[in-house]
């Protein structure tokens, strides 16, 4: 089976994954993932539920650390740095610093129950931002295409905004700490089509500055926004569980136009999943 059908130039990869296995307790959740996320591009992860695409995404900023039973094997390099070091290096590695450089946007908009201003400023403050905070807040909100809608109510609660606005606020919050990569875990799953369109347009702008990895259930969305697409699938194990694996990873046109694997062809044409 083909694990990675591209021939990546290592130097252009922001994140590269080698032989990644993720376990929850003793259950293998995802196996044998190899892929490279190219810098300043959008990579989409698609596949049926339970195929492990979110799990892989959450390895990139070590959010799986928050789940006590999660265990990761293999190598993930971020800009050449091993983010799952072993032995002596593991003690010196700090996921907190990694998470400043790899931001995340979640499936359900989750602004802090604080003012719009504080939502943006908090992340910068805890990371020791020394510049002009007002300027940073405005720049971040402009960057997330929400400034015009909120500039007169920065003191109001972030929870008072609509779902789509909340999600753009969360994107503004993520870009305020100037990460290099933004991970998006089904960012439009809870939004209506108009809000979704706004986020998609925003992503096209954001990729000039950031590398973006997006998990989505919406295949049209993957084909619209992404440069590269990874298709994951799940297969039954002997023990009766399910294990996810990477079926095919290639340029988005290839995945949707002329995929090499039959599974991929069936999935993107809507024949299963």
């Amino acid at each position, binding site marked *: 089976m083909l694990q990675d059908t591209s021939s990546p130039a290592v130097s252009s990869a922001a994140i590269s994954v080698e032989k990644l296995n993720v376990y929850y307790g003793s259950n293998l959740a995802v196996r044998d993932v190899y892929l490279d996320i190219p810098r300043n591009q959008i990579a989409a992860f698609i596949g049926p539920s339970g195929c492990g695409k979110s799990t892989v995404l959450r390895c990139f900023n070590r959010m799986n650390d928050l789940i*006590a039973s999660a265990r990761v094997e293999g190598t993930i390099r971020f800009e050449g740095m091993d983010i799952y070091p072993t032995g002596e290096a593991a003690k010196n590695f700090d996921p907190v610093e990694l998470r400043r450089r790899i931001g995340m946007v*979640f499936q359900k908009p989750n602004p802090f129950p604080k003012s719009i201003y504080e939502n943006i400023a908090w992340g910068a403050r805890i990371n020791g931002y020394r510049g002009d905070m007002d300027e940073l807040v405005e720049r971040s909100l402009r960057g997330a295409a929400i400034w015009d809608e909120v500039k007169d109510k920065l003191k109001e609660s972030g929870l008072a905004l609509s779902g789509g606005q909340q999600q753009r606020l969360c994107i503004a919050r993520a870009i305020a700490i100037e990460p290099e990569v933004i991970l998006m875990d089904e960012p439009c799953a809870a939004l209506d089509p108009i809000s979704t369109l706004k986020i998609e347009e925003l992503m096209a702008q954001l990729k000039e500055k950031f590398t973006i990895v997006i998990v989505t259930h919406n295949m049209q969305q993957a084909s619209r926004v992404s440069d590269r697409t990874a298709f994951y699938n799940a297969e039954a194990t002997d023990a009766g569980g399910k294990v996810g694996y990477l079926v095919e990873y290639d340029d988005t046109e290839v995945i949707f136009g002329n995929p090499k694997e039959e599974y991929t062809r069936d999935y993107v044409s809507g024949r299963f999943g």
Partner: protein
Amino acid sequence: MTFESITDAQAESNLVAAEAKFQPNLAGRYRLDAIFKAATIAATTIAIAVLAWLMFDVLISGVGSLDRSFLTSFPSRRPEQAGILSALAGTGWVMFLVAVFSFPIGVGSGLFLEEFSGDNWFARFIEINISNLAGVPSIIYGLLGLTAFVIILGDWTGGRSILTGALTLTLLILPIIIVATREALRAVPDSIRQAGYALGANSWQVIWSHTLPTAFPGILTGVILALSRAIGETAPLITIGALTFIPFLPEGPLDPFTVLPIQIYNWVSRPQKDFHDLAASGIIVLLVVLLVMNSFAIFLRSRFQKAR
């Protein structure tokens, strides 16, 4: 009834077989609805009525002797001269110290158990024990306080002092505060924590900026419930030897003291009816103190919710 007509219309348009499969029996279901509602109303009425009767009874017998001199006099053998000043001052001192001790310790323990300890056998062991402690009769805490604070640590606590009473009541209500804190923290959506961690925050920053403020109204409610329990406790304070006859005002935490419920208990147990009326007046004072405390907490809580 409109519901029935809709059901009838659907049934007519469907096959006869389908009609036999579903028997909506709306009349029966609404009757059950009404019975259940009536039962809950009856339950509420019983609870409120008993409380109202109690209050009425206390007010009738207590209002007569409740005047300025009652509040400013010390206890006395002559009912017309007896007052509640020293008990009121004692309750004020004890409750202040209990709040100072129990809030940081209780909330801190709750935070550790919920946010830091993880899910291991040790945390579960502690959790079970704390839940058990919350149900231990208060007189047992009195015996513990007698042994620990009066006999063993008596040199530091001043023996049967305000400090001893406050420490004993703190032990009594700590489990309640810890359990309430954990419940409030558990109600904070995980998505807020994740948002914090994803921005490169460490545990302390997430807890201090997001988890604790979000949970704070719930924690405050728990603390106030616990303090309300402490203010009415009599048995453990009698066990540690709090005195009833205190014809002076305590000047520091190491002084002997009495509290409102002990004073009330003392008056109730005397044979003269005049003292029973004094007890009723004392109960009114105790209830007013309790109400003031609760409204202060509600005020704090609403301030806190508005600030967010």
